[in-house]
């Protein structure tokens, strides 16, 4: 018989008391008998707790929701954001899709490789960083961007990327958002429209028009 390999996949997994409470809240959002709908949020919660999704965590979620194990495996393997193998504490996801690439994502990739000393898809020896290419992160207006954890770091260049990584290495929490100083997704060089005052008012038109 094919013996299941004992590995990191078998680290015991249980929700912490806080997470269990949160999980129960999630399950309550769905009608009775439809707990299976909570699979994805619960897998996410488990991944946040463990840093990745060991098989024990998937088994635990399946048992919690009373669905067959394979149904949870199917979901967890389908979505790339569920991590099925251990990764570094900081998961650096570099967008290399069209907009970011046009704005210099190749330089960002190079910076990450140089600073961290690992290739795409690899984890540093101290298990702090994993770098990975992702497809469009949906923030083209602030390209190039990098996602670390839940935060987007936008308008990057080699210097700002390096600073972010150095800060993380020191255990600091760098400021998320645009690194070039612009506000959200306002035009990079300052406002380009609504600059002149209208005939009847002295400032830009306020309100919803």
């Amino acid at each position, binding site marked *: *018989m*094919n013996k*299941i390999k004992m590995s990191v996949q078998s680290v015991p997994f249980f929700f912490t008391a806080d997470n269990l409470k949160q999980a129960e809240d999630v399950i309550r959002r769905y009608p009775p008998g439809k707990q299976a709908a909570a699979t994805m949020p619960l897998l996410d919660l488990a991944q946040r707790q463990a840093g990745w999704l060991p*098989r024990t965590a998937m088994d635990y979620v399946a048992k919690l929701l009373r669905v*067959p*194990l*394979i*149904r949870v*495996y*199917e979901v967890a*393997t*389908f979505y790339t954001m569920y991590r099925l193998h251990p990764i570094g504490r900081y998961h650096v996801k570099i967008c290399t899709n069209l907009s970011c690439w046009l704005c210099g994502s190749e330089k960002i990739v190079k910076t990450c490789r140089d600073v961290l000393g690992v290739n795409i898809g690899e984890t540093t020896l101290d298990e702090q960083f994993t770098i990975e290419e992702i497809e469009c992160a949906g923030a083209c207006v602030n390209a190039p961007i990098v996602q670390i954890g839940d935060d987007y770091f936008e308008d990057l260049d080699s210097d700002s990327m390096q600073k972010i990584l150095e800060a993380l290495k020191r255990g600091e929490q760098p400021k998320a958002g645009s690194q070039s100083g612009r506000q959200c997704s306002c035009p990079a060089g300052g406002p380009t429209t609504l600059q002149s005052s209208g005939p009847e008012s002295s400032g830009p038109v306020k309100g919803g028009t």
Partner: protein
Amino acid sequence: MPKLTLTIDGIAIEVEPGRTVLQACEQLGIEIPRFCYHDKLSIAGNCRMCLVEVSPGPQKPQASCALPVADGMVVKTDSPMVREARRGVMELLLINHPLDCPICDQGGECDLQDQAMAYGGNSSRYHEEKRAVADKYLGPLIKTHMTRCIQCTRCIRFMTEIAGVPELGAVFRGEHMEITTYVGKSLESELSGNLVDLCPVGALTSRPYAFTARPWELRKTESVDVLDAIGSAIRIDSRGKKVMRILPRVNEDINEEWISDKTRHACDGLLIRRLDTPYLRQEGKLKPVTWTEALTAIANQLKALKPEKIAAIAGDMADCESMIALKDLMGSLGVVNIDCRQDGAALDTAVPAAYRFNSTIAGVDIADIILLIGTNPRREAAVLNARLRKRWLSGHVEIAIIGTPVDLTYPAQFLGDGPETLIELIEERHPFSKKLKRAKRPMLILGQGPLTRIDGISILSFSRKLAENANMIQEGWNGFNILHTAAARVGGLMLGFVPGHGGYGVTAILDQASRGAIDCVYLLNADEVNMSTLDRTFVIYQGHHGDAGAKRANVILPGAAYTEKNALYVNTEGRVQSTKLAVFPPGQAREDWKIVRALSERMGRPLPYDTLADVRARLVAIDSAFAAVGVTPAPAAWGVFGEATSFTDSPLRTRTDNFYRTDPISRASRQMAECAEIQAELESIKQDRILSQEREND
């Protein structure tokens, strides 16, 4: 509801609403190619092979398997658009399919091969690299070659829907999608062998049969199975002297189109430990002898004994012809100690309804309450369990269990474990009684476990009373069902192979034999009696395998297994069915009734039949049902049976036999031994997990 009229390829046809275009085409006999569609499974619609042109509608081909018929539809199944679409789909499917038909076990019976010939192009335009997928472990019966998989998901749907063991799934996505258990464990299902039939390509093939034969070399014999009492329709594929494999045939009344793993894969046991020559025990050792010597030895022994010193027991795999021959022979000697209930089950023979599955197996489909008493159909009749699960899936049914709560693949309400619960139900003191009262077609299924208890006769009587009180016996509906585990049992009871006036039953025969009051016991295929009680007895064993009976025997008469004779068996419903000779018995072995006939000749009391037709005529004379082979039996008349005597309120246990090792054939099978070993391993893992969980909870 009024039927809908549509036109398919210029032919007008009336179809019931709710059917699909594909089904409508089938009604007309028009072949629609398909891979993912299977009429016993839910519709997936992912292979796109069944495209047809439909108007009114968008100007593009549509998947006919998932398209419900509508009034006035015009369907074209062979237009240029359809042909081109199918060719395109086929080309797409073949992009990642290896061109390894010469080394593929599915070759010659492969849907993809056939349909590529009929609907595909003549060459490939694909020059890039093909996808490769690692093979998966699905247990000892299924060989995988996952690169060949076209992801029709039939196997996933079968495991989830029919087998009720959701262990297969599709992980990853797009081009990387793989069919797997993910954890690489053996499928915990008694029906897993059916995956091999369902797989339209060579991704899942039979492991035991791997690389042993090509379909065109095999001789196909349509027969029935005797390894359980369901009597599933099977096809025996043989080459030369060897049964190469066993496949299911469609019989909607019994097995639909599934068979259990034991039925399918115990066939390697047909060549192992076979008795191929008569043996005689001389100076404590079994020595091969000629038929004449063996029969003479028996004749001398039997002639020297008074009839009350002789007994005969028919076992689980005895056919009707041999049982009637043995019964007639014993009758001519004046022997009354005969019994076909080797497990000692308290089955009543006076009323046929008392030992039959009266609702019929197809009747499960219309029952609205199903009460399982001391039975685990998953182990005792795996195909019936699939039917029960199908009934549960279709809804509006309550399934309840009295006895041991087990995982049946569907939820069963646990009512209680002992006869006391039965009495509560009879007297309507149980909370479940209200539901029973409201039911229109309630049924109960009584297993062999409770009947083989010392108080079995009381349990039988309680079950009868419950059937009567709970309105299970109605005009046109009989909800009282006995689930047998032995293929020979109903036949034996119909023929009256039971103790005559003043005769002993199995328990008493063995008891008397151990005390030396019975000197000679004739075991016809009987291996499951306690052989240690026969230490002082002259044992004649007639059978096909060197099992417990042959080990103890003084004389061994080699008989034919069910694949080697044309013989009648009666399934648990009372349906008479015939096995067919696929291969000849090995060596000196002979058809069983002929052996008894030869023995009667040797004893100077020849039986009055010389041909199979004569024996069949004798059977029909006893019960006219034997004339109607293969048909659903006529309902049996109801009557009073069983006897409410004393009983103990201990749990009604199900039979504890290992599913894979119930009879001489499966016990001889290496394949079944492997299955049993793996099952034991899985059980122990489960036990460990439960224990460790309990420890954690403490």
